């Protein structure tokens, strides 16, 4: 339609819904995050770096980012296997296993922390067998890694499942009929297809692990410089009425998380270039 009248969309209410979307996101996401930046803006650059670059804070960054990355990486591998098994095979108890994947989602994180601590402590069901082998899990960095792996698994599995369902087995058969061996089928046919969602699952698991507090405080031992994660350090700072220091650390986490997620998104975009269909 031409003339002075605007054409009407088939789906009405674009302006209203966009306004609602922006207002909602602004209130729920942008305003709280801006408040953190506003709080920090009152600090001088020297004070800011003094707050975020002490040995204790740097150690907490190392532990939080290191354990989160390691847990997300492990979940990427084993989450793929779990998702593959759940999508490709039929076996008794499949639905129970499928439901079990969601358990870390549904379980309160404190319960997860208590359960893991009970399992992996020196006298726990698993911990007592690991101790003679020289592995101590509870109250060590390894415990943090275990807790973060536990809470991150569903993010990878649930992200991959729909993509694997869409991926037809005929593609693998086709590759085999064209002379590809199993390894070539995985690397050149399957992985390029699932890479973007695999990275999405990794990013979600990583982001979730980075902010995790409830389960980690039970199993980590919370020892400064050794097993103290950033969220716990922020709580500790707040308890000491060091609100600015806590906010400065939170802002650094925010920026670092944002940059990492941006990097992962760019990687996703790059990996889509290799998709066959």
């Amino acid at each position, binding site marked *: 339609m031409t003339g002075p009248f605007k054409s009407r969309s088939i789906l009405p209410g674009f302006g209203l819904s966009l306004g609602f979307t922006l207002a909602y996101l602004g209130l729920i996401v942008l305003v709280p995050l801006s408040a953190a930046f506003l709080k920090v803006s009152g600090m001088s650059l020297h004070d800011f770096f*003094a707050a975020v670059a*002490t*040995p*204790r804070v740097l150690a907490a960054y190392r532990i939080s980012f290191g354990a989160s990355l390691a847990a997300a990486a492990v979940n990427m591998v084993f989450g793929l296997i779990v998702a593959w098994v759940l999508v490709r095979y039929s076996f008794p108890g499949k639905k129970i296993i499928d439901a079990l994947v969601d358990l870390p989602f549904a379980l309160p994180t404190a319960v997860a922390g208590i359960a893991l601590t009970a399992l992996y402590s*020196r006298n726990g069901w698993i911990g007592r067998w690991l101790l003679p082998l020289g592995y101590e899990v509870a*109250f060590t960095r390894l415990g943090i890694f275990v807790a973060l792996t536990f809470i991150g698994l569903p993010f990878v599995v649930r992200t991959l499942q729909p993509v694997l369902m869409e991926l037809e087995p005929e593609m693998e058969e086709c590759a085999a009929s064209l002379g590809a061996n199993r390894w070539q089928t995985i690397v050149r046919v399957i992985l390029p297809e699932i890479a973007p969602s695999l990275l999405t699952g990794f990013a979600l698991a990583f982001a979730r692990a980075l902010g995790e507090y409830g389960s980690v405080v039970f199993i980590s*031992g*919370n*020892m*400064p*410089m*050794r097993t*103290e994660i950033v969220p716990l350090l922020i709580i*500790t700072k707040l*308890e*000491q*009425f*060091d609100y600015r*220091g806590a906010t400065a650390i939170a802002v650094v986490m925010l920026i670092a998380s944002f940059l990492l997620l941006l990097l992962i998104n760019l990687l996703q975009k790059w990996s889509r270039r290799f998709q066959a269909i």
Partner: protein
Amino acid sequence: MTVVPARGSGRPVPPMNPHIAHTAAGGTVDASAGEAFREHLSAVYALTQDSPHVFASPIGPFAIGGRSAFLPRFVFFGPHASDQSWRLAFLAGFSGADLRSSHALLAFVERLFRESDAGHGLHLALFPLVDAGGVSLGAPDRGLAAGHWGRAHAPELELLEKDSRLQGYHGFIRIESAPAGESVATLRMRGSAAEELSPDLELISTDETGPIPIRFEACPGPAESGPLSVADDLPFAPFELTLSLPSAWPDAIYQNAAGLLLQRFLWRYRAFQAYAQNL
């Protein structure tokens, strides 16, 4: 109980520190004393912000009387401390009515901040106020000093018990104010170590206590209260050393005596451990 006669003499009495409020042992928590403690604690928190050795690391939170509170804790990793370092826990303020011991332990934290070599190779946990809930509520003495850690109903003792199991301390050092009428400091040794060691010979020497009048006691046998009440479940058989300082002493002398004795104890303990390792 073995009692070693007191030695040393009193020192000139300096004026009382106005910053630290007096509390009568066994009485209720004075609001101004609680406020003074919080100010002192905040000052030490601020002091240790950038320290590479002393870290404020309160544990909790725990709920008491409908409120949420934390148990103040400072962690000290001496130079060259490692996971295999000897671990000691310092406890004070078992009663909100005895905040002088809390101030003394906070002053010791400040000393460790300034002179970190004093705890070379050691891992220390310092709990300046065990009765954090009592002070928060203004409650009278809750009897935490005599509480069994394994059967405790007080959330602070539950946290301490959990922390003890977790860290596996080799020893506990308790600071408390002696009942009125006591005029000398007392070092009391409890636990299995008390049966084997003479406290004045091994863990602190009378030659090192300087002018502070001091009496040594040993209480061998099982303990029904304090950290040793759960000693059987701990990874190491710990000792408990109680430093009891006369309530009548002015604040400055009280704090100086606590700091001096604790520092001498650390020196002796380090030397003792080094000798044992050499053997």
